């Protein structure tokens, strides 16, 4: 089972790509997914959404989830 990870704005530029695909066996929560992919804890300023709703780092992932990581929002 697989999970799509998306990055936006300055975070996409820092990561160097817009998307990762993660095998769900590698992570059970959003925070673990970040750690698995980037080798460190999720920085406090990074925001996370699952299936286009905001979630906290301990949100549990399910097969097929779309996870997004992004910096503070600056619209309006």
């Amino acid at each position, binding site marked *: 089972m697989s999970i799509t990870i998306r990055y*936006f*704005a300055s975070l996409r530029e820092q990561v160097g790509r817009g998307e990762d695909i993660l095998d769900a066996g590698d992570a059970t929560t959003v925070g673990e997914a970040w750690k698995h992919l980037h080798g460190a804890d999720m920085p406090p300023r990074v925001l996370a959404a699952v299936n286009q709703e905001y979630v906290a780092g301990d949100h549990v992932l399910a097969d097929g989830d779309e996870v997004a990581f992004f*910096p*503070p*929002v*600056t*619209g*309006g």
Partner: protein
Amino acid sequence: MTRIQHGRTLVRLEETHFEPWSELAAFERAAALDDGKTGAASVFVGTMRDFNAGDDVEQLFLEHYPGMTERELEHIAAEALERWPVNAALIVHRVGLIRPGDPIVLTAAWSAHRGAAFEACRHLIEALKHRAPFWKREDLRDGSQRWVAENTPA
């Protein structure tokens, strides 16, 4: 252009220049807000400035998260109708490349009472700035680019 209309809320992303005052006239007609029940409308329009943090900004690139942005704006409009005695709410937001003087965002709330209209309109823009997944990149006159780090409190 993404358009989501639920009863008397309308949320829309615009990929090209829009005219806030024309949007308001069209929405009022469509939502029949000239029916003698409404009484008060409060509107906010944010336009692009040609300066920020002491630098000349030539253009702005507005990135968003397609799907989540519309969903979050819908949540925000629905909240305004739940929390205040508001008849209707409108949110329009630009995406893509924006030039100085161009409108970026329009929020509006209609109510029988002016206090509710003002508070609901203020909520629309504050919640949008805190929660809606948009990101501004500034293209400066000196050729450099930078992402805006975060929104100012007011």
